[in-house]
């Protein structure tokens, strides 16, 4: 296995009002290609901050962030946008679909940034929706879908451009148990059958059980790293 994500001595601090708050204190981390990593920890421990750094949404205060061979801590805002479009698929807690677009139009949004033809974009959207089991709801708008279905559309959007890394921020946080299990099964299937590397922030120990590796953060420091046998 090769390292897809490497963090070296990463710190991150924010200025809130007049106060400087250090959220991450010298984190070192390696995530291998094909891993399904669950990031756990109490609120304020720095999980989402770490996820944002790995996903290229934010820049570290110090340290190195190497993802898919790129030192993303050195990239400009514009370059980071391009980089995210090529390498990262996002899944949010509240789905964050565009309410005015149909499911298929939502899934197509990342592909608009590519040079693919309209026919090829449509084909890929169709494949992604079939993969998440929602091909027959392609023409429905988000408000016509259940929470679980909306999260499936969000997953289809995340995988449609075949990203290097899937990052999920509490993907089951807004779902009931049954829908949460379905979503976790889907993510696990993507990890196992498609060899997708997944980094997931969760509070839910049951959701974390689907991951191949569990990492705990507390007060900005990694405290516990557990790997599970497949």
């Amino acid at each position, binding site marked *: 296995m090769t390292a897809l994500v490497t963090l070296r001595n990463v710190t991150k601090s924010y200025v809130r009002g007049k106060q400087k708050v250090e959220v991450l204190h010298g984190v070192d981390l390696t995530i291998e290609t094909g891993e399904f990593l669950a990031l756990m920890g109490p609120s304020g421990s720095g999980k989402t901050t770490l996820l*944002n750094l790995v*996903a290229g*949404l*934010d820049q570290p205060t110090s340290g190195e962030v190497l993802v898919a061979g790129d030192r993303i801590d050195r990239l400009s*805002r*514009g370059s980071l*946008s*391009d*980089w*995210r*479009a*090529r390498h*990262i698929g*996002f899944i*949010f807690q509240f789905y*964050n679909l*565009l*309410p*005015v*677009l149909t499911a298929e*139009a939502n899934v197509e*949004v*990342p592909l*608009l*940034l590519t040079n693919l033809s*309209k026919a090829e974009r449509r084909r890929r959207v169709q494949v992604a929706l079939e993969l998440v089991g929602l091909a027959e709801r392609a023409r429905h708008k988000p408000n016509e879908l259940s929470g679980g279905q909306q999260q499936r559309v969000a997953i289809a*959007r995340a995988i449609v451009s075949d990203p290097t890394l899937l990052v999920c921020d509490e993907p089951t946080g807004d779902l009931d148990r049954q829908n949460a299990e379905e979503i976790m099964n889907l993510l696990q299937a993507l990890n196992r059958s498609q060899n997708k590397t997944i980094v997931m922030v969760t509070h839910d120990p049951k959701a974390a059980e689907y991951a191949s590796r569990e990492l705990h953060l507390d007060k900005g420091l990694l405290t516990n790293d557990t790997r599970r046998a497949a």
Partner: protein
Amino acid sequence: MKYFSLVWAGLWRKKTRTVFTMISIVIAFLLFGLLQGINQGFSTALSRLDVDRLYVTARTGMTDGMPISYLPRIRNVAGVRAVSMWAYFGGYYQDARNPVPAFATDAVELMKVYKEIKIRPEYIEAMAKTRTGALIGDALAAKHGWKVGDRVPIGTSIWTNKSGSNTWEFDIVGTFDSSAYGAGFPSFYLNYSYFDEARQFGTGQVHYYIVSLQDPKQAQRVSREIDDMFANSSVETRTQTESALAQSQLKQLGDINFIANAIVGAVLFTLLFLTANTMMQSVRERTSELAVLKTLGYSDTKVLILVLTESLLLCLFAAAVGIGLAALVFESPALQTLFGNFSMPLFVASMGAGIAVFVAFVSGFPPAWRARQLNIVDALAGR
């Protein structure tokens, strides 16, 4: 083009607000189209007027008379092809609220000056032979059902004849078609010689000399010579080209250009704030959606362009509808009669499109810039 569905969908996120904003823009551009169209209509009508015709009036005002003795002197100025004259009759038919634009003239000379009037030669001859004769425009004849041979009583609030009456009787000896000169061209002519003999006062006076030139390039020189000829006389003259005269008459109604521009300016200024407010609200409501787009790899500049395009689409679409409606209004029979075969000038449509782009840019830029500057982490966290 592939982003069109994204932009269009964003525009209709709040349908009611977008519809109301669009209606406001449509009305503003309808008003713009109508006012600027009318403005251009007057300009077009003025440009159609001949430059080889000069109008001589008293310097003190168009309603002050000039001696008829000026006629042969003007005719003798080098470069003058023909001269006719008009004296106001100020007529009405049966009721003062039913005006008849009547002028006393020398019909033979008048037809030489207004070459595009269509009239049968026998009518001009009949007019010369009939002292109480009248030549009337086709439209006026159709309006009152008058025909050649009819005797019509025309009242005037200015002139009393020597029998002490304000109602004069005329024999219609011919009709003519003056559509080439638009609907405003006088449509009732009586013989000046008869009028001058029969009126109780103001004899020997006319209000206009209409001078036809051999060469339009001589207009300035001939005008100057005529005015110089009567300088320091009891009635000094002002000689203008037809379009200059029409412009000065329009000025009496007020500066139409200024009024049109002032109204349109005020409306568009208000529109700027309305559209800016709509766009600003729209972007504020979509903070997290725009952050998601950025998360998915849309660059800051791309997001700025998407928001600006939305503003552009809103303004251009509504402006096109507004100007299109104005163009339809100009096809109405009433305006066609006023301006004579007039359509919305392409210039006005282009100017409208330019203003729509300006409004879109100015009102869309602040929210677009705000969207551009959006920090993903803060926006997703709802900060």
